[in-house]
């Protein structure tokens, strides 16, 4: 735990010190704000529908933010040669991956927190419950955790940051749109593919409408665990090379 905390503090410090994290946060919040205003709040509609549309738009924050915040986490260390410091220190690869993951997740949580003013506006002007908002944000955070874990794997696979970014984005896009493939095949493969989907099935039918399904929570935790494990194994394989 101590090693994870050391890596976590350094990594979070990097997000908070450098303009990189804040620029990403500003751009994503700006886009989310415009989309919320132009799409979710246009015309007369039920406030629950407005909130649903808001979460539809806001899911871009963890999806894009997750990739943008994670692609450099390990590839940059290799590119700048600072990985040698970590590799020659008595810490495990899991400590490196988890420290970085939790730092990125914390920054993403800050980013999500900064977007709370939008549902607060909906609540002030309409009839929605705090629980609906809370469930939506739990969903955004879990979606972000899964995206960050996928991005970390992309970052672990290569030392080139650009390639890491493309790999991460490609993996997230595939898992997000894999439900389109489900309509082309028959059961039981169709059911399996549907359940793998990152966004459509587990976010839109659950968290986005204010429904907290245990299976959706388990799914996101499982995806996060799976990709973090792959990242650790990739790092272990590369550590001694």
């Amino acid at each position, binding site marked *: 735990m101590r090693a994870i905390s050391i890596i976590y503090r350094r990594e979070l*410090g*990097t997000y908070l010190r*450098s303009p990189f994290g804040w620029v990403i946060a500003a751009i994503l919040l700006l886009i989310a704000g415009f989309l919320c205003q132009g799409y979710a709040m246009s015309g007369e509609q039920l406030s629950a529908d407005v909130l649903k549309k808001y979460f539809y738009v806001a899911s871009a924050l963890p999806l894009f933010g997750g990739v943008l915040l994670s692609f450099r986490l390990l590839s940059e260390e290799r590119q*700048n040669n600072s990985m040698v*410091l*970590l590799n020659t*220190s*008595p*810490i495990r690869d899991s400590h490196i991956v988890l420290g970085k993951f939790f730092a990125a997740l914390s920054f993403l949580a800050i980013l999500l927190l900064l977007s709370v003013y939008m549902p607060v506006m909906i609540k002030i002007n309409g009839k929605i419950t705090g629980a609906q908002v809370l469930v939506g944000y739990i969903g955004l955070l879990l979606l972000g955790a899964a995206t960050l874990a996928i991005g970390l794997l992309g970052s672990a696979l290569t030392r080139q940051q650009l390639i890491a970014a493309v790999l991460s984005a490609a993996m997230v896009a595939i898992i997000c749109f894999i439900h389109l493939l489900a309509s082309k095949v028959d059961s039981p493969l169709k059911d399996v593919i549907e359940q793998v989907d990152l966004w459509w099935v587990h976010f839109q039918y659950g968290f986005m409408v204010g429904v907290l399904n245990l299976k959706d929570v388990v799914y996101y935790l499982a995806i996060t665990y799976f990709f973090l494990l792959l990242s650790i194994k990739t790092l272990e394989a590369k550590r*001694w090379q």
Partner: protein
Amino acid sequence: MIRASNLSKFYGGKRALGPVSFEIKDGETVGFLGLNGAGKTTALRILACDLRPSAGTIEVGGVDAVAEPHEVRKRIGFLPENPPLYADMIVTDYLRFAGELRGMTREQVKRRLPEVLEITDLGDVSTDPIGTLSHGYRQRVGVAQAIVHDPKFLILDEPTRGLDPVQIVEMRNLIHDLKQNHTVLISSHILTEISQTCDRLLVLGRGKILGVGSEQDLAASESEIRQVSVTIRPPSGDDPKGQIRTVLAAVDGVQGVADPYEQGGGLLYVLSTTKDCRAEVSRAVVQGKLDLIKLDYARSELENTFIRLVGGADASN
């Protein structure tokens, strides 16, 4: 003690190192000398537990580096060719981070930091972001991170790479200071740097050890032809050059006398000798009633040895 036995490293099918075996005693300063691609960095990275050897064993302080790498990592400080720095961090924060990574508590790092900053002369820039420092200072920060946890073994890969002459002297002095408390391993292809800093040399070429020992040991083992340069004021007479040549050629140990050239108001002769015969030369010059202006022992023996060793390796491959 560091003990390597039949150490080899392959990248794919290409041999980068080995098999090599060597021992480094506690308190020694050993230089890994070799041309680019000789296997120096590979050897040092294996010793620092940054690379796993393809074959062979390595023990650091009695601990198997492959079986228990974390134990070895606690005892080693490593400065790679490119220092592992974070440009966005300030120097003290970075050293605190490096110390904690090596298992130190915050309190231990806090107590150790002033000493490290003093040894590496980083006090003036301790609150500066690393990204704003000059190359020389960055190299010092690299050394500081390697010694922050006070390791028994210190591995420095090309520590003077890219430094200007003043910075090289400063780095050499720093290494001299570090020798007092650490077993130091340095790699370099700069012969003078190695010969001035190290107790013992390990000459590598094409991944193999070509020679081990002190500068004198290596030269002696190679039946070195040494050089003595002597500057003599030309005597009056018909054939001053011939007279001098006769005197010098008769000295015990002198195998050849090169044609002289004028320098500093005298004639400079370079003598090929089988030993350091400066005393014999000076006696002969005085007895021959010649005026001795300057006598020097040419310091090119290490270069000669090195070139011959490396040349031999190239020829055998």
